[in-house]
């Protein structure tokens, strides 16, 4: 049962759903199986999210308009919801901006 210390970063306005805190360093509870992104989203919703969950998650995944980056790469390159987290991973959730 490995411990997972991961960095969670919210940008582009996504931080406003987390009391305006942009950078979170969290330790995920130990479990027998490795953590995957799907579980991480459930955990964030239950433990970090302060308001209006529908602005962050939708179904199993993040809502349209939020990009997810794992260690500075698009999560689509890493397996999306099935990606298995590693200790010290850095996950960024970024709302797409529409201003100009």
């Amino acid at each position, binding site marked *: 049962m490995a411990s997972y210390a991961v960095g969670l970063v919210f*940008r582009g*306005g996504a931080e406003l759903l987390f009391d305006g805190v942009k950078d979170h360093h969290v330790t995920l509870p130990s479990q027998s199986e490795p953590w995957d992104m799907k579980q991480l989203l459930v955990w964030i919703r239950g433990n970090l999210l302060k308001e209006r969950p529908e602005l962050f998650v939708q179904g199993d995944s993040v*809502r349209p308009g939020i990009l997810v980056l794992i260690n500075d790469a*698009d999560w*689509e390159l890493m397996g999306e919801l099935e990606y298995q987290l590693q200790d010290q991973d850095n996950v960024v959730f*970024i709302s797409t*901006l*529409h*201003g*100009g």
Partner: protein
Amino acid sequence: LSPLKNTLTNDDILRYSRQLLLPELGVKGQMSLSNTSVLVVGCGGLGCPLAQYLAAAGIGRLGLLDYDEVELSNLHRQVLHTEKTRGLPKALSAAHALSRLNSRVECVPYHLKLSSANALYLIGQYPFMLYCSDNVPTRYLVNDACVLSGKPLVSASALRMEGQLTVYNHRGGPCYRCLHPIPPQPDTVTNCSDGGVLGVVPGIMGCLQALEVLKIASGQPSSFGQQLLIFDGQEGRFRAIKLRARRAECDVCGETPAVTELLDYEAFCGMAATDKCRRLNLL
């Protein structure tokens, strides 16, 4: 389009002397710039610095498209406009300012709204397209029009103290739909009228857009195909993100595209292609 320019005049050589010295540009690159035309969609916080530096650098023709008029609340970030041009069409105000800076550049103001009816025609006249507007339907419209015309889209956005920049549909990289197959729900979208913006942040992002256009137009590779640049102005931090490649299942740039002509993007996104309505509701 004007006939190809094959030589630099003595005035050109003097005007562009500092950039002609650059091995990355040189006379050949300068000639490419002067034979390039660029359509700037939106003469606002991003479009102003972008058009300013493209005109200064000697782009041959600049299309300046905006349906809006200059307001006092624009001037904290839309630096081509002035107190005297309040009430004038932004496209015209920008064209006047740019002509004062470089009369060698052909500035074409379009005081109209980009739509499914005119986008392909307009884009057809410009090899480059720059997206600087600030609403979701126009984003999908511009993206699809660029994909259907086979043109790169140098796209940026800025809100509050943050900015984002990507070159879509360029050398195997994704288009906007590859990243965002489903439009965001209207209540998740914040624009400058709602969220505010520090004017110099679109200034930085618009300059970075201009740099990428100048690189591509002069034959240098762009740094932001399949890359997303994220800027956090509060931290002064830039982060570059590797994006997915073009998606085979993409509705517009994929292998069996469902979108083969432009749609009704306001209906597709469930919101108006403007930020005016939201502003009126707030006041």
